[in-house]
């Protein structure tokens, strides 16, 4: 065997091994949620803004009393977002197309590949096989990285707590309901059945069927099917999604894809680089030491013969 062929072979094997490893390690990029994962299909064309979901959430999660009654419609004057005291809020939007306003419920969308989970350095977050993104507030150190990471601006923060502020958000009623196969409290209370609970895969089919059956009623898009790698909560609307407060510039790639390549290098940097550069250093300074010795400088450093 010629020397050149041998080297070629080595290169090819090395490349194959690297590719194999990287594919295995980064296979997560094609994760599309757990097959039995649950979800909720939110049909904005049915919502009448009664705020019953907010009341149900408040009672189920034992949140503090609200500032205003849950049948008070004056809250619609401003656009709200979820807080430590309300894990879900309904906002009202006046749109060009519809003469009556459109209402939109906001809560955690329970991403297939949650950015909050990725950003959390104490591993407080878990994506359960039922589809919920839950968190362990005992582990949370209150760094608020997840609040920055969340593409939907969902996690709230207990600013009211001086000593142990932690992140607070919708957990899909995991502890009290989802774990036992029951729909979340907001779904159960909704009078208009705006919220349809079921397996995410079935909900996508139902959503497509509704669009197909009533093409005049719906915009031909299920928000959350692909956005940021897919979310457990999905939305149908009668007007363009950007008119009712949705971010329509969201990529279909999960947020983790933005950082995964970089994060993949971190272990390599930490393990290989020190050894590699120490080696380079030693190689580079081997002869130098010799000359140093000859020159008489730093003679005590290297007593090697």
């Amino acid at each position, binding site marked *: 065997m010629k020397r050149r062929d041998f080297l070629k072979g080595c290169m090819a094997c090395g490349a194959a091994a690297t590719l194999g490893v990287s594919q295995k390690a980064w296979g997560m990029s094609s994760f599309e949620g757990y097959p039995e994962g649950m979800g909720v299909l939110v049909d904005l064309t049915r919502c009448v803004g009664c705020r019953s979901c907010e009341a149900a959430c408040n009672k189920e999660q034992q949140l503090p009393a609200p500032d*205003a*009654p*849950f049948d*008070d419609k004056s809250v619609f004057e401003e656009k709200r977002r979820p807080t430590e005291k309300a894990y879900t809020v309904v906002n009202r939007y006046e749109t060009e197309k519809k003469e009556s306003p459109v209402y939109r419920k906001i809560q955690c969308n329970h991403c297939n590949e949650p950015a909050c989970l990725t950003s959390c350095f104490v591993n407080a977050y878990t994506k359960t096989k039922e589809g919920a993104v839950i968190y362990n507030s005992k582990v949370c150190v209150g760094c608020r990285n997840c609040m920055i990471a969340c593409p939907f601006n969902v996690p709230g923060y207990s600013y009211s707590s001086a000593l142990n502020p932690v992140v607070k958000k919708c957990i899909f009623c995991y502890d009290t309901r989802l774990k036992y196969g*029951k*729909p979340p409290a907001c779904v159960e209370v909704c*009078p*208009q*059945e705006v919220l349809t609970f079921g397996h995410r895969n079935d909900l996508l089919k139902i959503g497509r069927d509704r669009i197909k059956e009533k093409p005049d009623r719906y915009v031909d898009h299920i928000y959350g099917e692909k956005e940021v790698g897919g979310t457990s909560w999905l939305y149908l609307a009668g007007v363009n999604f950007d008119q009712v407060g949705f971010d329509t510039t969201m990529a279909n790639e999960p947020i983790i894809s933005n950082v995964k390549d970089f994060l993949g290098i971190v272990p390599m940097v930490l393990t290989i680089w020190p050894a590699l550069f120490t080696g380079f250093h030693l190689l580079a300074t081997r002869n130098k030491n010799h000359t140093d010795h000859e020159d008489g400088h730093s003679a005590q450093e290297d007593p090697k013969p």
Partner: protein
Amino acid sequence: MYAVRNWLIGGLFMLALIASPAGSRAKTTPDTLELDALVNLYDKVHFNHAKHIMLVKDCAECHHHTAGTLTQNPNCVKCHKNSGATASVACRSCHFIQPFSAAALRQKDKTAYHNDIMGLKGAYHQSCTKCHAKMGGPAGCQDCHTRSKQGDAFYSAGAYAPKQGRVEEKHRSH
């Protein structure tokens, strides 16, 4: 001889077919209904069925094809043009009280056409409010449902409303 007998049986059968829906309707159609599914938050709704029959006339408006009258919806007619009255015309026999329970989700036939049937509460509200808006019927929540004490507590309203002072204080501090 056989021919005559067959004719007789056939005739009787036809008679029975014609007579039975009307007869059974008269027997089972209630004049009033008490809707108590939301009784933990609201008082029972006394639904005046007779009045709604008088006003709407067409059973299919609420009961689709199940009451034996032809529905106008072109989508339904595709299959239900000739379907007769079903054994039960009660809303709850197709629209489940618990549409999202684990049992209901398991039962769902994913290949069937009707795989997106609304729950009872959703079906009532969608159907009632749409028609009430058109006909000028009561439209607000409490126009049909009188909220109970538990309901007030649930909505933090009425006697359970947050103290006004606190709200004002909150606004001032902002």
